[in-house]
């Protein structure tokens, strides 16, 4: 079902066979796309052409091609840099951080660490947004959707575009 045009953006669609893989790829694509609809505070970038740091904490579900694909992307003139983390150190440098479901236990710690950072936290574990994550991937009617914790974003001075809000299901929860 490549009606999900988002995946086509990354040229992923053609290769996918596995629905779960496909889903992950889509999530990966979305991850990059989020950069287009988010506005970081000025302190997030030193120079205008500083890259957007895209971090993955924990198990990387996005596949081998993901890094390559990410390096080709540009958002608002900024490139992407992929960083993988196994330990929650230096996560503050990330503009977008995908917290893998493998870090389920340590989530509150991680979130706590990132409480004053400008990192956009994205995860696909259940109740991620409830627990303080900003973007949570959900599945609705077979399609990859996401929810946005607006409060959490606001507390980090991340402005989420209304358009994103339109396509998501915003939740206002506590931070």
């Amino acid at each position, binding site marked *: 079902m490549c*009606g999900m*045009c988002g995946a086509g953006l990354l040229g992923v669609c053609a290769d996918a066979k596995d629905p779960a893989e496909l889903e992950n790829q889509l999530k990966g694509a979305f991850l990059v*796309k989020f950069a287009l609809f988010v506005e970081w505070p000025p302190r997030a970038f030193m120079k205008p052409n500083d890259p957007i740091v895209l971090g993955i904490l924990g198990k990387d579900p996005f596949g081998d091609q993901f890094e390559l694909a990410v390096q080709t992307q540009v958002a608002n003139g900024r490139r992407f840099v992929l960083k993988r983390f196994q330990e929650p150190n230096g996560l503050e440098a990330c503009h977008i951080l995908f917290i893998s479901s493998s870090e389920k236990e340590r989530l509150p710690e991680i979130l706590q660490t990132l409480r004053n950072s400008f990192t956009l936290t994205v995860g696909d574990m259940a109740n991620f947004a409830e627990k303080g994550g900003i973007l949570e991937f959900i599945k609705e009617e077979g399609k990859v959707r996401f929810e946005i914790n607006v409060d959490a974003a606001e507390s980090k001075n991340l402005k989420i575009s209304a358009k994103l809000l339109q396509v998501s299901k915003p939740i206002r929860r506590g931070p």
Partner: protein
Amino acid sequence: MSGPFRHWFNFRKWSIQRKLMVIILVTTGGALLLACGAFVVNDFLAYRRSVAKDLSTKARIIGYGSTAALTFGQPKPVEEIITALQADPDLISASVYDQQGQVLAQYVRADRQGDFSPPQFQENGYRFEHGQIVLYHQIVFNGEVIGAVVLQRDLQEMRQRFQRYLGIVGIVLFTAMCVAFVLSSKLQRVVSDPILHLAKTANIVAEKRNYAVRAQKESEDELGHLIDRFNEMLVQIQARETALQRQIAERKKAEEALHQSQERFSKAFQASSIAIAIVSFRSGRILDVNEFFLKLFGYERGEVVGHTALDLALWVDPQDRAKLVELARARGSVRNFEGHLRTKTGETRTTLVSVESVELGNETCLLFITHDISERLNLEAQLRQSQKMEAVGQLAAGVAHDFNNIMTIIQGHTDLVLSSGQLDGEMSEALQQVCAAADQATNLTRQLLTFSRKPLVQLHWLNLNEIIDQAAQMLGRTLGEHIALKCHCAPELPGIRGDAGMLQQLIMNLAVNARDAMPRGGELTLGTTALKIDSEYAKAHPEARPGEVVCLTVTDTGCGMDAKTLSRIFEPFFTTKGVGKGTGLGLAMVYGIVNQHQGWINVASEVGAGTTFKLFFPADSHASESSAATSPDPVLRGGTETIFVVEDEPKVRRFVCSRLRQYGYQVLEAASGLEALRFWEEQQPKVDLLLTDLMMPEGIFGRDLAERLQAAQPTLKVIFTSGYAFDATDEDFALEEGRNFLPKPYPPHRLIQIVRNCLDQPNRAQPPKSREGI
């Protein structure tokens, strides 16, 4: 423009007003149409642009709003936006496509949902088709095309709007045209009126040729200037017209003058009574001749013009012509060159030719002026002839006069002796012989006298037929047996005035000549006829006179004469007969007699055939006067009157005086007219009769003497005597033999008779008037 088009729209024939009107309307209409059209078109385009712009904006809005939806594959927001577009009832469809060209969201207007087919596209932009506008807008997000918006909008509104506009334009146009029409029909007069006025004026000028009209100037524009120029032109034309008229009149006058001059020349040329020919110098061809030329040479004009003199063989000797032309070339003109020219009939005429060189047109021509002097030469010859005759005549007359005087004495005295009765037979006979001889001598002298021009002639009215009768009787003996005499006398012959004796003599002379021409016999015919001579004949024969004539013809069948002889026959002393056979005076006498009778002679002769003499005498219808042929009065009576005898020959005078005294007259005598006058004036004698010789010396002739004496004494009677020639044709002088004239020689008894007769005549106050026919 050709064919039918031209037929309908004969633009050129339209009036100014119509043209102006049409121009204004077309201009107005055109401008308006253009304006309205531009306006409408502009509006149309602007409207379309605005529609497109509107649509484009909408598309962009949609696109902008669809970025997230497209990025994350969520159609819902797009659907919401699109649905909102329903508010625009003109929107037919709105579609958002994703990157793969799949429809993310779509709206189709209710009425088109049945047959909706999504429009195809290639690139960004819009197009108008089928009454709708379709817009394609690619949604670009983050530097890449993530989708497209396709909007489809209905343009019906626009069409309606457009139609409304057209309607408005139509109304506006129509109204404007009406206004334009009304206005222009008033205003175009400003232009057309002066033009029409000018046209009308021009018409007047053209039709009536009235150059005095002027067009009125109303404005200062080009038309005003045109009118000024027009008027100026008219002024010029008028002036030129006047000048032209004058020129024409002058030309006419000049032409008239030229024509008259030409006519004058032509008439002078043609009417000239000398022959003129105009000849080209170069070619020698005759260019023109006048009438006289043609008449003189007997040609028709066509035969002459264009030919040369050599062609026509005009010159008897062509060298003459060459000489003449050479002279003309050398001197420029030649006068009176004697040349012999030939007429058409071959007749030669002697002429004096004058040549003048003239320039006629561009050609040098020679003017040949020809005087025909043949006639003149002829006349000159005749004159010489007659002068010769006259000289001879005068000589003869002179001789005769003296001779007559001598004869008078001889006869007189002889008569005296014979009548004295004292002679015996022998002596008487001898003296009679002397008388006879004297008579013969007198006759001879008479013959001699009669061929001179002015002899003594006594003309009586007579009939030639009688003369011929008398002559015929005598001719019988003269002619001889071998010659047959025939007479053909016209029955009713008019009379003539003539001297019977002379006419007898004439006939006798001719008969003798005829006889001598017919030695072996022949025929002599005498005839008379009456003729009428017309002026043509008189012109051709100078000696002839027009009128009634009597012609006496004497024809013989003798040896005839050649032309050379013929030309001399009337010469005195010319004879073809041998010495001693002829005096040569016969025909001279005939000639003289005919002349005295106011007639003329024609001779025709052919060698070997004979000769015919034709003698013409003017007819005279007057009743004859009493014949003056007096028969001798046997009784001689004398008288006692006084007679004045004037005679220059002393012997004759002595004789006459003695005879008169014998008969009892008183006689006074003078030897000359002068002496007689002197005597008369001194002595104042009483004289009854003057007997005077006519010709006397010392300048006073008998006639003058008689006049003077008769002037002094009107009752004086006069008898003239003469042995001399004198002019008997003088009208004032009437000589009647037997009355007042006594020709010498005369027998004494005659003298006495006449003297007595004269004295017995009753007195007359004046001398008798002239007789006609003398």
